[in-house]
């Protein structure tokens, strides 16, 4: 049920019109290093007590080649918090959630929370970069079924701003 909600929500497949939408902003900082690789990033929603609710995005090297280190999925375990919470349960890629890695800059994805019950949640963002570091951000938020309150965090190394905002569908 939850997984279905995740797929539907992340893909934004629900009919626009009556449903509110979330804009999720993720900032990938530009890091000046000799050898830069785009980070793997996972965005998901938890309950405040830690229960998993839904995946919003998983950006990783989706190329599938034979051999150790060639298959991009081999490094998904480096998103350690996500891997332990839900990643290892999934069969990748996940439609509507998986996507290729993204370049430094600000990225926005649209999520349709649809049938997500009102309540308190935590937006979790995790980034892990080859030859770099790993960072996990937690942004508590309250969802009243129409508007989202909170859901903002500022990273220090591998992530910049991560923020959810709601907008009523025009």
């Amino acid at each position, binding site marked *: 049920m939850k997984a279905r909600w995740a797929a539907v929500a992340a893909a934004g497949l629900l009919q626009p019109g009556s449903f509110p939408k979330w804009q999720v902003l993720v900032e990938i900082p530009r890091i000046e290093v000799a050898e830069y690789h785009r980070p793997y990033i996972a965005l998901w929603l938890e309950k405040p007590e830690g229960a998993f609710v839904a995946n919003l995005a998983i950006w990783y090297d989706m190329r599938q080649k034979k051999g*150790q280190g060639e298959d991009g*999925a*081999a490094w998904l375990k480096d998103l350690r918090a996500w*891997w332990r919470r839900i*990643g*290892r349960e999934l069969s990748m890629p996940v439609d509507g959630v998986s996507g290729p890695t993204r370049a430094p800059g600000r990225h926005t994805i649209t999520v349709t929370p649809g049938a997500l019950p009102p309540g308190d949640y935590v937006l979790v963002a995790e980034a892990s970069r080859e030859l770099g570091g*790993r960072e996990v951000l937690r942004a508590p938020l309250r969802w009243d079924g129409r508007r989202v309150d909170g859901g903002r965090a500022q990273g220090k190394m591998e992530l910049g701003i991560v923020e959810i905002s709601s907008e009523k569908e025009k």
Partner: protein
Amino acid sequence: MIRCLPKVTLVSVAFQCFFISPLFAHRMWILPSSTVLSGNEAWVTFDAAVSNTLFVFEHRPLRLDGLAIVGPGGKRLAPQNAHTGQFRSSFDLRLETAGTYRISLVSSNVTASWKENGEAKRWRGAPEQMASNVPNQAQDLQVWRMSSRVETYVTLGKPTRDALAPAGSGLEILPETHPNDLAAGEEAAFVLLIDGRPAAGVELNVVEGGGRHIQRPFEQKHQSGVDGRVRVTFPSAGFYWLQAVAGGGVSGQNGVRATCVLVVEVLPQ
């Protein structure tokens, strides 16, 4: 176990070593290159050695006789590229199926001493060969039985539990909390078993690796409860060495000694 001794032929020294455990400082271990893996398939390489400092090759290799690998579904697997060098043995394992793999080095042996026409005799070997080498009704017959089990676990994808079934012989440190789901600051439970039954009142030593470069590695002793259970909270991420020794005896008498070592990796939160 055998490799801990200066020379296998020095049996009398061996006897003393076995039963004076504080002097038995060398530590046996198998160290995996990774414990938590993702993707469709993966390779893991393992080092097996005996050393004082964890996990540094500084003393002896651990022989690979008695290497048993059980994969998901209870499937037995063979290692590849096995090699024994001066300080360590190593081997590779290809993980082709998602799930948990148990890697064990198991050995057992018997040492017997007796008198024959006034002459002291000694024999050491595999338990099943004792009958053909040691007279049944020998004078002053004394028998020491030793077993050891050195283990680690690795998981590709989702952890499974079928490789975690008790082997049912000797001493085992059986993970209750999945051994590839350990995180810094969290409590994990293990059950100590002797011949498949809960082993109460047995001490479990927990030692953090990295002793060459940190002043005082974390070290803790736990006593198993009546149900054989031990709860350990790992303070920080890293590889840990868990060891339990059961049985014992006094030099000059019959005795049993069972050792089990489990190496686990604790990951950051």
